[in-house]
């Protein structure tokens, strides 16, 4: 067991976790934050993407024990009284169907916009598609996800 304390969605979260506990399990089973999903076991689908210290990571491929002192944001932590512009954009552009990959798409979308804005680069449609390499959606065909992220980039 490793004792770990992190900040999740602005609140302190601690626990004694077995060494092998993945962040995705810690979030889903210990904290019952079930918005973070797991859709594969080879770190490819991206349904589990959360932010650790402001950067997108695959929570199924990070040990909870390694995140002592880290700041974690999940899809549940985005709306602050009102919806995050990325959440609004996904609704406005029909960027989701079954909703299962959506939390990961939203978290990856925000991350890519933050990075592109920080570097002063333009987030083109092609760039969005390339940046989504680690997020798989089976419903939307990506068309409206690309539109959603582009829309959100304009309002973030």
């Amino acid at each position: 067991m490793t004792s770990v304390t992190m900040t999740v969605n602005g609140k302190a979260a601690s626990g004694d976790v077995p060494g092998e506990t993945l962040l995705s399990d810690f979030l889903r089973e210990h904290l019952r934050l079930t918005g973070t999903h797991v859709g594969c076991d080879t770190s490819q689908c991206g349904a589990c993407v959360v932010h650790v210290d402001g950067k997108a990571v695959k929570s199924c491929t990070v040990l909870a024990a390694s995140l002592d002192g880290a700041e974690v944001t999940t899809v549940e932590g985005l709306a602050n009284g009102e919806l995050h512009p990325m959440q609004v954009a996904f609704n406005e552009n029909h960027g989701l169907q079954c909703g299962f990959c959506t939390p990961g798409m939203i978290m990856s979308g925000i991350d890519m916009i933050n990075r592109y804005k920080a570097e002063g680069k333009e987030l083109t449609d092609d760039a969005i598609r390339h940046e989504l390499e680690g997020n798989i959606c089976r419903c939307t065909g990506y068309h409206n996800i690309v539109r959603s992220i582009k829309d959100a980039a304009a309002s973030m």
Partner: protein
Amino acid sequence: MYAVNYHKPASIEDAVAAIGGADEAKILAGGQTLLPTMKQHLAAPSDVIDIRGIGGMTDIAVRGDTVTIGAAATHAAVAGSNEVGSVCPALAALAAGIGDPAVRHMGTIGGSIANNDPAADYPAGLLALGATIVTNNREIAADEFFTGMFTTALEDGEIITAINVSAPGKAAYAKFRNPASRYAMVGVFVAKTGDGARVAVTGAGEDGVFRHDGLEQALGTNWSPDAVDAVAVSADGLMSDIHASADYRAHLIKVMAKRAVAAAG
């Protein structure tokens, strides 16, 4: 996953001690390969030793024409590093193309080369650049380091601390991705140095990353994409799987080599 003990030592000495005290220790640097392997029960270490808490492990610094990259520097850090960019932009570009953005935020250069996956990108870059791998015990030339598929010159308890890369004259990496995994199905890194051309190929060889003599000779004499045309690339020793036959991989080595040389200028 099987049960595992997690350690986060603050020094190399503590890390070495933790490794020595474990039944079977694995070093955790970014975990982007180790953890998926453990999840599938293909690896079952008793202990993982997280080296990211050791001072200096993520530093990147330039001295003269050489950049020293800490073993726990993430792919994103290398990709965005002005230091790496000033010495070898081709290596920064290689790092920017590893995995996907979330993987690049966690995966590290040390983890990548210690694992020496036959489809990893860094081994091609470091081998072609003639990099030096620095461990807690010694310095190892890349030519000596990559010894075969998933195997390296590292000894038990030996920890990579940094990688030294000196500026090449020209360099570039061209990768053909496996459509499914997006790992390199063929990746060719070309570097023009004072001693001639170095060409390293990843994703294709049955024994992992390798240098290609024929391409090096041709490019050493004539650094141009056209020089690649005359080179015979044999399919012997290349992997065959459902995604690509050895013949197709041999063909792609030439195409990627040409594109890399063209990109290097």
